[in-house]
């Protein structure tokens, strides 16, 4: 598995974060997004509403002035001349609601003043230099039409009265700035009234003008959100169709900073909440999963062979039950294991005992037969054989100890050798070479004798003489006994069978001494201990025993 399996504690913690912190964070982010969208929508909406209000008011004013100019034209055409009271009549009735008549001027084509309501006329209307410039330019460019011109900061509504291609009279009305300014003063946002080219006629601020007094292109060319310099704006533009545009601009910089700060604060608060939640979830998940950890530790201890652990849980009922059950189960298990061990030991012990007691009846028969024979020809030898045999028998039935010292076992071997020596006389020779430093080590009882038994059993087959060498010494922590003879050796097939039986650890029913030895060593000592045998036909057999060195 490539993915690491997480701990229960980590899972609890993640669950806590996933189902508490994350949803709240998502909701807050959503709320902020909705807030910003709603805010920008309302900013735009109210800006547009205000803009349309101003635009409608100005359109209305301009319509009145356009209408007035048309009416003046009709009055003029009635008589083809300027009749003062008629024109004043129109002027007063149209501008009644404004309380300001403004400057209505009628000019002849050669720029002579025919009528003025204020008694003064700007020189750029009367001087010949300007005959094609400014307001005059507008009149001549749009024959028969009313045009709105912003010139030298004054707003003019002008129309030429034409007879065919000939200009008869020019009507120029100077719109009182106050009328237009009134409609924008008091607005909570920047309002600009400009001509179609963006030159400002009236405004309630000067912050968005360029150095030439024209509103900056950024605001006049399009509506929408924009960033100019370091400021954010929402700008909206409408065209009145009467030569004037209304541009309303909100400076959003402060609000945006406020929102950024607000978002910043919320983000900081959230970072803090997440940090705290992360830390506290870590702590609380540790606390809530402490019992799980205890259980985990207890199981681990049991796995490592410690059966004495106890689970003490009293934080919550469920875990308390688990803990108590575990304790009960463990003590039951412990009892069971002890019983099993005892049982196994008993079985092993009885097996060893049984194996020890397998005294070869052939040997007994042969020895007794020899004694009978010796009793006739050499009573001394017979006596010695009886003593030796009785020593062997005593040794085998004496105390129930499983282990004896090397020295003790060797003295038993000596009895056995005595009997063999008498039985085979010169046909049998032996050498025993056991290191003195292992004499007090413990070895299984009757370890060496079966080796000799085995050598004699196979060694004499078809040959006159047999010599057996027994060596005992220690290597590192082990004791090694080697029994080597120069006898007939073991047939290859037979050897393989023996080796197979040895390796299979089977409880062989054949009462070979070497099986017994191997089996007993395996039962008594844990580890790579036991018996090995090698043999070459007609050359001899070597048996090797390895057991752990230990003392009483």
């Amino acid at each position: 598995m490539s993915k690491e399996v997480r701990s229960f504690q980590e899972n609890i913690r993640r669950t806590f974060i996933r189902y508490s912190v994350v949803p709240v964070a998502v909701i807050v982010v959503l709320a902020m997004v909705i807030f910003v969208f709603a805010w920008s929508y309302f900013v735009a909406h109210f800006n547009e509403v205000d803009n349309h209000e101003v635009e409608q008011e100005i359109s209305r004013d301009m319509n009145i002035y356009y209408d007035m100019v048309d009416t003046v034209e009709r009055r003029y055409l009635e008589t083809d001349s300027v009749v003062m009271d008629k024109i004043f009549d129109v002027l007063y009735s149209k501008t009644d609601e404004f309380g300001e008549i403004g400057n209505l001027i009628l000019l002849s084509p050669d720029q002579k003043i025919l009528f003025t309501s204020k008694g003064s006329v700007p020189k750029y209307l009367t001087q010949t230099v300007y005959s094609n410039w400014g307001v005059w330019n507008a009149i001549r460019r749009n024959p028969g039409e009313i045009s709105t011109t912003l010139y030298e900061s004054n707003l003019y509504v002008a129309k030429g009265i034409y007879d065919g291609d000939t200009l008869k009279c020019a009507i120029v009305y100077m719109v009182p700035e106050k009328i237009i300014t009134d409609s924008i003063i008091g607005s909570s946002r920047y309002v600009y009234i400009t001509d179609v080219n963006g030159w400002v006629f009236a405004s309630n601020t000067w912050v968005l003008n360029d150095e030439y007094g024209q509103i900056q292109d950024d605001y006049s060319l399009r509506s929408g959100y924009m960033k100019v310099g370091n400021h954010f704006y929402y700008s909206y533009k409408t065209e009145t169709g009467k030569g004037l545009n209304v541009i309303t601009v909100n400076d959003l910089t402060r609000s945006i900073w406020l929102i950024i700060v607000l978002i910043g604060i919320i983000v900081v608060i959230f970072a803090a909440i997440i940090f705290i939640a992360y830390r506290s979830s870590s702590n609380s998940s540790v606390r809530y999963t402490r019992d799980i950890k205890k259980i985990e530790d207890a199981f681990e201890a049991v796995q490592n062979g410690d059966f004495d652990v106890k689970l003490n849980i009293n934080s919550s009922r469920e875990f308390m039950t688990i803990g108590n059950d575990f304790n009960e189960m463990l003590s039951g298990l412990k009892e069971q294991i002890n019983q099993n061990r005892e049982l196994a030991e008993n079985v092993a012990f009885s097996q060893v005992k049984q194996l020890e007691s397998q005294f070869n009846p052939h040997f007994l028969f042969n020895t007794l037969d020899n004694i009978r024979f010796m009793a006739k020809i050499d009573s001394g030898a017979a006596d010695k054989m009886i003593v030796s045999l009785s020593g062997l028998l005593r040794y085998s039935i004496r105390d129930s100890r499983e282990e004896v010292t090397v020295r003790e076992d060797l003295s038993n071997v000596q009895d056995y050798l005595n009997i063999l020596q008498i039985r085979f006389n010169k046909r049998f020779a032996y050498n025993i070479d056991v290191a003195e430093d292992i004499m007090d080590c413990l070895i299984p009882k009757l370890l060496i004798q079966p080796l000799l038994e085995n050598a004699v059993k196979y060694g004499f087959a078809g040959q006159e003489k047999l010599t057996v060498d027994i060596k005992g010494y220690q290597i590192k922590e082990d004791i090694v006994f080697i029994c080597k003879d120069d006898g007939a050796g073991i047939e290859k097939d037979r050897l393989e069978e023996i080796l197979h039986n040895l390796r299979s650890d089977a409880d062989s029913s054949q009462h070979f001494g070497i099986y017994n030895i191997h089996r007993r060593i395996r039962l008594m000592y844990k580890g790579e201990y036991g018996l090995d045998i090698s043999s070459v036909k007609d050359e001899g057999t070597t048996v090797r025993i390895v057991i752990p060195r230990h003392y009483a």
Partner: protein
Amino acid sequence: MFVMFIYSSSDGKKEALSKKLVVVSPHPTEFMIPLIQEFENETGIAVELKNSGTSDAINEIISDSGTDILWGGSVLSVGPYEDYFYSYETPNRVDFMEEYADFSDKITCFTNVPSVLMINEDVIGDIEINGYEDLLQDELKGQIAFADPSKSSSSFEHLVNMLYAMGDGNPDKGWDYVDALLKNLDGVLLDNSSEVYKGVANGKFKVGLTFEEAAFTMLKAGSHVKIIYMSEGVVSTPDGIYINKNSSRIENAKKFVDFMTSKDAQRYIANNLGRRSVREDVIGASMLIPIYEMLSCDADRQEVIENKQKWLDTFTGLSGEVSDE
């Protein structure tokens, strides 16, 4: 989020581009506004104005294809950059005075701006000033407003004027005077031309070397200043209108040239803005003396263009020596 709004509304801007013209100009703002307003009203083309000194304006037009027109800058200063301009002969050229009509198609003369001295009548006291020679009086030491010719084209015109006028037609002989004048400036060399006329108008300097239009504007604004036409002779060099050959709005640029050289525009400029028209059919403002009343001094245009850098270097060298002393 706002970026989204901004870009969604940029279509309108593209549409407006076709009716647009980007103009860079060293002219004073007050001079430009009425002309631009009238141009916009008449043609419906929206002008984007950039205001900068002559040398910056030249750099702008030769390096930025987004700038369509260089409006202003004397033909002497801008002449060397002829290769960067678009050839266009306005139909108005037939009405130009002879000396302004024989320029190459890449240069259209706009107005004539004579160099003048401007004195502040309130602070000049009884010091009499009629020409360049009078500027060397000890009483004027440190009281003369003059901008660095390498930074201000009107100052370069004055340098040319004094080299020819004081050298009796041979500019190489005029440097003694320049050296003497630099000494009397007492290390005061201003950064641009507006510091000169404003400095004199507000009494910081007694006399300034400036151009007629600036002095006229100050006079019109009610400053107590007086225009002095140098008795040694006045060099008057026209300034021009130059179309960027890389402009993408050549048609609008042509309309601009036509408008600015039209009789109405020239008449307005001459009467209200203190410049002398290049057209034969326009007479100057009553506040200015007629052109024939001033002693004119001829400068060889080709010689000036060829030697511009050399003379500026010489001037810088001299002014360095003076300030080191």
